[in-house]
């Protein structure tokens, strides 16, 4: 059973790591479009896949995953925007959980944009 005592232990550990965890100004941001259009197109499993992949690699301090609204390109949902400080924002379209590992590995870790998943490569 999950207990509040367990939560207290998590709190104490988190407080001990506080210096480490202090808002990382260089953190990259992954924004998953989660308005009606994004959700209906399957944004939730994409967001979960990012969270899991980033946790698996222990990158929670360096990359934040969050939801955002509709940016007006509903036909390309699920849309994911990747923002790395000092670099141009990249918009990935028609994302799936399967595509997530490559975006994390190639783009977020190795700084190579996965061009074939971007909006530029998918508009006609």
């Amino acid at each position, binding site marked *: 059973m*999950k207990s509040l005592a367990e*939560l207290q232990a998590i*709190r104490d550990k*988190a407080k001990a790591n506080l210096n480490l965890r202090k808002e990382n100004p260089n953190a990259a941001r992954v924004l998953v479009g989660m308005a009606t259009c994004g959700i*209906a197109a399957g944004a939730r499993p994409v*967001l979960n896949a990012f969270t899991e992949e980033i946790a698996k690699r222990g990158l929670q301090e360096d990359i934040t995953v969050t*939801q955002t609204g509709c940016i007006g390109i*509903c036909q390309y949902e699920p849309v994911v925007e990747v923002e790395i400080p000092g670099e141009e924002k990249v918009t990935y379209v028609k994302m799936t959980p399967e595509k997530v590992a490559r975006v994390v590995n190639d783009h977020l870790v190795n700084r190579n944009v996965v061009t074939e998943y971007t909006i530029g490569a998918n508009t006609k």
Partner: protein
Amino acid sequence: MRELSLNVMDVAQNSVRAEASLVTITVEESDKNDSLSISIEDNGCGMTEEQVSQVIDPFFTTRTTRKVGLGVPLFKLSAEQTGGSFEIRSKLGEGTVTTARYVKSHVDMTPLGDINSTVEILIRCNPQIDFVFTRTNDNGSFTLDTRELRAVLEGVSLDTPDVTEWIRQYLEEQTQILFGGA
């Protein structure tokens, strides 16, 4: 929407945008009464009577990025297509309550789906907001209240990875207990 839990995620975000500090999500189901009801209540900015009538119209939205707003109409449709009902009550400056009632056994009933994932994502992505999630069935109920967690956490954020993992496991455990370890 493939799951009602996705409608909940969608409509709950209206509460987030309405600058609510507390969002209460309640899912009550009863096999005895063949019913399921979902309510999303917030203390956000609320709406005027005129706005309430507008949000049910799919061609109304406050957004500027597109011309349609399907969140509320889809939620309404999901309930009405089962012979259920849908209601929005709102007061400017006080908040909004959205309630959808379903006839569970209806052929057009959409499955509830992974409601725990919806709750977990809402908390993780909006750690500044408090959520109260209650799930009830004929056997009993359980509640997750982030205000209680916050009291224990003493300033440690709800989106700390270990905390979100605790929340995920808590919801899973409680659901299993409620539904008899299926």
